[in-house]
């Protein structure tokens, strides 16, 4: 009961999960074999990767410039690495 335990959520009849809003607890990045990593020296801070990430798991730092991939949710799909115009994103094996 990984999801249920982590959120104290209950699985109800019919597979209904309550309360809602528990997707943060479900660390889907755990399934991945690799995840994206940003080379800050090559990164041109264009944030293209942020827009393309299907999981929404590339975060912009408080300074509004640097980006960081959250490995808890990155599934290693490589979309960011392909889209990055500076070639600053590489895939790292877990």
């Amino acid at each position, binding site marked *: *009961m*990984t999801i249920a335990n982590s959120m104290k959520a209950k*699985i*109800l*009849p*019919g*597979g*209904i*999960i*309550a*309360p*809602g*809003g*528990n997707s943060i607890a479900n660390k889907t990045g755990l399934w991945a074999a690799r995840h994206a990593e940003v080379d800050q020296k090559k990164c041109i801070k264009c944030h293209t990767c942020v827009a393309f990430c299907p999981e929404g798991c590339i975060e912009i730092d408080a300074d509004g410039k640097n980006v960081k991939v959250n490995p808890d949710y990155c599934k290693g799909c490589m979309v960011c690495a392909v889209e990055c115009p500076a070639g600053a994103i590489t895939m790292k094996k877990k």
Partner: protein
Amino acid sequence: MNTASNNNNLAMTGGEAAAEAMRQIEPGVVPVYPITPQTPIVEYFARFQAAGKVKTEIITAESEHSVMSAAIGAAAAGSRAMTATSSAGLALMYEILGVASGMRLPIVANIANRALSAPINIHCDHSDAIGVRDAGWVQIFCETAQEVYDSTILAVRLAEHPEVLLPVMVNQDGFITSHLLEDIEILPDQPVKNFVGAYRYPYSLLSQEQPVTFGALMLPDHLFETKVAQAEAMQKAGEVYKEVGSALGKITGRDYPKFELFQVDENTEAVIVTMSSAAGTAKAVAQKLFKKGQKVGVVKIKLFRPFPYEELRALLKDIRGIAVLDRAFSFGSVPALYSEIIQTLHRAETSNNIQSYVFGIGGRDLREKDVKQVYADLAAGQFSSETKFLNLNQ
């Protein structure tokens, strides 16, 4: 059409009876797609809606697959949802029937049973409903228009019972029941509305106070337990059927057993076990034979899912000759009802003989002489493990 304020008797078809019950229940949403012989049900109901007698939202979907999907959306959002279909329509719903039961949504569907294609045929047999018997729906089979009316009302409360929360299918024989006029008693509106009450599904897709996730992905770590809970709810539905039936009986004065007995007591030597309108023909013959001194009766199964094994076992174990009349094939196996009766008796220490018959495929008549032949076979002790066919052209 009837807007009765007192108990009254009216001539109605089974289709009208279903629509009349739906008018009184007044579900929030009725998604529909026409198919013979179910069409009169939604036609009559749409007339009620057009005349302003119900506030129901009717959704005319592009297929039965979408009909059941819309019913699921409505039921999950917090609205009572009902629909009706037949044959290929039920088959097209198959995927979504499992979603409705798996999500534990108490949708009620009236089915006018009709043969599945191919070859195409619009008349009655049970291949549609029997084909979906493992889809997780409670299944009630009705002999008469009265049973259709009563069972539709009963089904709503059974489906929505907090310990059940399962969809319910109310079956009637296409054309034979759905299109023939019968004298039936209609309750006044208010007792029906009181009986079904307001739709109170415990969770709503639209609730902001108590947000929940419906239809989430469920991998090997959870699905097994969820399906076991669903199986337990289906067993519970058998108990709740009795409770709800007895509550309805207080209003109608009629009984709602899981199976009906006709001329069956401790002296009965032979019975026909069957479902739906064929039970009427069987009873007519049994009555005539009984008057001539033959100890024969009829067992009409009304609740097919969950199947009432325990109660039936106690009853059937002492009856020597049992004929089971199925209105559908189970290709490569034995017919479904016959299989259930074998399962019912397999743990009983009994020496009864059971014979399987298939009849009425694609609307083929079950004649009195066919039923007489069955009782004659039973009396002569002619039993085999082969399924026999009634009124088959050789």
